[in-house]
């Protein structure tokens, strides 16, 4: 749906984005991940046409973005706020109308949202009377109220407590299920890995990795499994033979948990066939690398000298 082609942006001597390209597929949740200062917000500002790229272009459905496209999309900026002295309802209406919504329609939909999220009595409150989390909820509602086809959420979970973060997470999934294309940007990679279908990892102005989460996981798979069984660990290790390597193991109340790394060319089936005679299997699970781990590996592969010195958290 959205493709970014070779975008370069400089601020004076500082290069904010250096030849960044990525594709956001339609109807998917796309994660734009990277540490603070990697260039995520700059890229988003170029997509939303707040600033222009020095070179490169942004295409929406194959044609260059226009102001009308930007006005039609939903955008929740990282640095966000509301007029403190304005009433909640009035302000939400104002923002909806700026998005081109009709006043009656906006009122109707707002009431629905307020009811669904149990914010009914907030309508005539001033924003300054709300807590930060409450204001964030209002902000989220105003972002998606006009039912945009394309939604950009920059650090959507910042400012929410875990309960409301879960509310937002559910809402994002619901929107994706109705066909909305969503671009999520965050430095907190762990918080979104279950949400995203596709991701792009940005570090120091470059895309270091992009693609579907499934593919990337496969690509960065460690081929390591966690096997639970009843039996002798030593016998299990011997039975593995050349199919796998026992990384470590724990025994508790007669149950052994072993971490097994497949050796070159071996499959999980080989391992199971070899070990079944000596172990009574209880459970089996692949050890999936976390997005943060993948990021660090991807960065260090690209820049072996730096070894991800710039990652946060």
């Amino acid at each position, binding site marked *: 749906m959205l493709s970014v082609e070779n975008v370069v942006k400089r601020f004076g001597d500082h290069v904010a984005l250096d030849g960044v390209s990525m594709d956001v597929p339609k109807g998917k949740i796309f994660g734009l991940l990277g540490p603070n200062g990697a260039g995520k917000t700059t890229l988003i500002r170029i997509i939303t046409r707040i*600033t222009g790229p020095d070179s490169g272009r942004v295409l929406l459905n194959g044609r260059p973005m226009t102001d009308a496209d930007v006005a039609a999309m939903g*955008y929740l900026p990282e640095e966000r*706020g509301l007029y403190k002295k304005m009433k909640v309802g009035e302000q939400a209406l*104002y923002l909806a109308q700026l998005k081109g919504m009709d006043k009656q329609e906006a009122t109707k939909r707002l009431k629905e949202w307020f009811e669904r999220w149990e914010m009914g009595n907030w309508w005539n409150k001033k924003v300054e009377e709300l807590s930060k989390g409450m204001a964030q909820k209002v902000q989220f509602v105003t972002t998606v109220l006009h039912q945009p086809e394309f939604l950009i959420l920059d650090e959507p979970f910042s400012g929410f407590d875990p309960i409301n973060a879960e509310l937002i997470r559910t809402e994002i999934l619901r929107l994706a299920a109705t066909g909305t294309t969503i671009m999520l940007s965050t430095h907190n990679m762990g918080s979104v890995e279950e949400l995203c279908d596709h991701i792009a990892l940005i570090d120091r102005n470059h895309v270091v990795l992009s693609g579907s989460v499934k593919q990337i996981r496969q690509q960065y798979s460690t081929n390591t499994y966690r096997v639970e069984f009843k039996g002798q660990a030593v016998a299990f290790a011997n039975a593995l033979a050349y199919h796998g390597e026992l990384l470590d193991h724990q025994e508790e109340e007669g149950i052994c948990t072993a971490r097994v790394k497949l050796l070159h060319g071996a499959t999980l089936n080989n391992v199971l066939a070899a070990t079944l005679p000596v172990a009574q299997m209880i459970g089996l699970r692949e050890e999936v690398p976390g997005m943060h781990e993948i990021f660090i590996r991807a960065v260090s592969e690209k820049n072996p000298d730096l070894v991800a010195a710039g990652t946060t958290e």
Partner: protein
Amino acid sequence: MGKIKLIIWREFITRARKPSFLIMTILGPLLLVGGMVLVTFLGMQEGGIQNIVVVDKAHLLTNKLQESNDIKFFYEPDELSDSAFKASPYSAMVEVNPLVLENNTIQIFYKDLPSMTVQNYISREIEKVLETEKLRVNNVDPATYRRIKTALKIQLFDIEKQGKQSYDQIKAFLGFGFGYLIFFFIFMYGAQVMRGVMEEKQNRVVEVLISSVKPFQLMMGKIVGVAMVGLTQFLLWVVLTLVLGTVGMGFAKSAISGAAMQQTTQMTTQLQAQMDDQGTVQSDAGEAAEMLGVAKAIWDDLPVTAILLLFVFYFLGGYLLYSSLFAATGAAVDSETDTQQFMLPITIPMIIAIVIAQTAVYNPDGPAVFWFSIIPFTSPVVMMVRIATGNAFAHPAELALSMALLIATFLFTTWLAGRIYRTGILMYGKKVTWKELGKWLFYKG
């Protein structure tokens, strides 16, 4: 276009609904009219009866000075010592030296400075007596003197306007008043634009808004919305002032006429006395009638419609020019304290304008006035003086140039401010320098 209307409306209504707007709207004219009424009222009330002792060694004045309701004279042949005067019930001591007929000088010692009214009264009374005395000494017949005595009045006529007196000075003051209004409006509402921009930036609302509207729309919406608040307030002030003024003047008039009644009885006796020994008498009533006549003459003489239209033009032109600069300032800084370095270059031309406009009142043809009425940063204030005196209409080319330059400049400053605004509103935590601002102008949009 629909979006900019929405922005204008929000800027307008959120301000117009504030209690402070209502309070200022009501208080403004109340303060204005109340102040005027108070001044007239206090001006009429003298602080009780003034007992004035006249030290008259030569016995020239003793018992010859006319007393009024509030001013009583007492006479002493010998000087009072300082301590004696301090202890006395007299509020002022007039010392008349024996040579007063030659040097025309008296000294007044006072406990509380006598008001101008009291001073004038004393001076007038003593003058009368001394004149009578001089006439007697010089053996001049008072009737002859009355014929000789000359009170010259100057009537000014502009050769371009045959048969009409010109009142350029008064008109110039009127023009200065208009200029001052423009000056006041620009500062008051320009600062509001600046604060509004800063508020949006500090709240980060602007981040949310600029995906819906262009920064330039946002800036113009704010500028126009605030201008509407200002115009509404002015309009309400004018209406309220007129209403209150009518009521207030009615009140003042009845108060004055009450006081005047007392004065007239006294004045008729005074008049008789004056008629005898003094040539010209000008009554207050005569003066008031003349003032009214002047006001009417000025009104008839002024091209009122043209002046009002030009006032609105310079008013809006000046406001647009400066408010865009204020908006840019608000966008460039993070907090009110950082505004100082950028405010100075905005403030200085305005101060210069008001100073030059003051000189223009006395000399609307001077070269400084000419140049500053052309330069767009000062022209809205300075040109108003030239317009009111009619000077600007006599030089239509200069007026046209000034207007054209003002339009061109506000288009330019708005463009310039738009560039700074666009970058500035999204820039946080950076101490902005002039060099930095320069760079922003050339960032690719």
